[in-house]
């Protein structure tokens, strides 16, 4: 059965997003990384998704750099 282009695109989006963590950690092989970059280049939704995932991870790393100040700030919440 041939998938229609929209369904195929969505499947591609799903596969791409499943690899984003490994991509951002530099753990995808070159071919897979290039394929992800090609998809993200043409897909605005996945491009935004990747950018926001990257910002999330950067925020987490920043938390670690700040030490325990912020962690203890939030202990009562």
């Amino acid at each position, binding site marked *: 059965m041939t998938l229609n282009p929209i369904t195929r695109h969505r499947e591609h*989006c799903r596969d791409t997003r499943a690899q984003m963590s490994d991509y951002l950690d530099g753990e995808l092989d070159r071919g897979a990384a290039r394929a992800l970059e090609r998809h993200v280049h043409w897909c605005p939704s996945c491009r*935004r998704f990747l950018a926001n*995932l990257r910002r999330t991870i950067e925020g987490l790393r920043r938390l670690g750099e700040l*030490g325990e100040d912020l962690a203890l700030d*939030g202990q009562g919440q």
Partner: protein
Amino acid sequence: MPVDAADEERLVQRARAGDQDAFNELAARYSTRLRRTLFRITRDCDAAYDAVQEALIRAWQGIDRFEGRSRFYTWLTRIGINEAYRGMRPVEEPLELDDQVGERIPAWGNQPDRVFESREFLAAVDRALNELPLDYRIAVALRDVEGLSAREAAEVVGIGERALKSRLHRGRMALRATLDHYFQAGYL
């Protein structure tokens, strides 16, 4: 403060030979970091403090069993997490992830490229981390906040690297979804 590996190895050897001062020096190096890690997992200052104390006692009692195949901190963190687990039950329910494809592209503010770091955003990241199921929270806290490698984090948790990466990815995806409205507002 970066820890010299050879110096650490010497301290471990002395501790294994029964030198309590050497062990105390190791404990002094790592107890604050361990307490911070355990606080991020337990979200309870007293529980984190108690888990650190218990972990240090157990580490001292079991230093003979530390064979140096991992970093001392990795080994100590594993003991600490086991202690922190007491009284905490991991959440088993799968997390509903907001990663549906074809989602509506959110409207961006007037300055989509404007990037500004704010304490408000970081506090939101911290809160979102706190809301993650425990297994995901531990993976994210060890890998992204504490900066352990995936292999080290897997060792600490006592699972395979692949399973750790799966938890990490799911945790990150859930955080991204929770923080989405901050991104729409242009926060970083």
